[in-house]
């Protein structure tokens, strides 16, 4: 079981300068929704963006502590293009 703040800190360390929003969807600490906007994503395909997020979370994904992460990733440019939502 994880808490959103721990996850958030890990992601921010791995992807400096990002904006990370996390939501514990079931309240059980193993299913999260995440929105990550990161300069590291610029010019990367969505798969590559997702892999950048998954990499620092491997230990929890492998142990099963983190069961599911519904991920939305954007480069700052992609996010800007979408406009306010």
């Amino acid at each position, binding site marked *: 079981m994880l808490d959103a703040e721990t996850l958030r800190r890990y992601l921010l360390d791995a992807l400096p300068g990002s904006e990370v929003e996390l939501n514990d969807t079931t309240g059980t600490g193993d299913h999260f929704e995440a929105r990550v906007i990161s300069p590291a994503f610029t010019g990367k*395909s*969505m*798969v590559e963006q*997702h*892999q950048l997020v998954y990499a620092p979370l491997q230990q929890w994904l492998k142990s099963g502590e983190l069961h599911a992460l519904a991920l*939305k990733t954007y480069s700052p440019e992609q996010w800007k293009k979408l406009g306010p939502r």
Partner: protein
Amino acid sequence: MDPTLKAQFDETVKSHPIVLFMKGNALFPQCGFSARALQLLQPLGPVHTVDVLADPNVRQGIKDYSNWPTIPQVYIHGKFVGGSDILMELAERGELQDLVAAGGK
């Protein structure tokens, strides 16, 4: 991974613009995620499907080949695009058809 299998995947993803590695086939998808991926892709052009359930070597092999843990998997113009979540998200953003239209560029 096995070089023969790798060569086989190289060949498959290069010889069709849209390739879907799925459970079941286009007529009888054996899994909801595979079915949904197929629905998203079919409007964009002919989809070449590979049934991973037909061969355990392919089922495991494609995961190694893409370095991606789940099925379905989609290749567009020889490039790995992702699984069903990514496909849905790309479709929502209107980027999926761009990938097909870009012709691999």
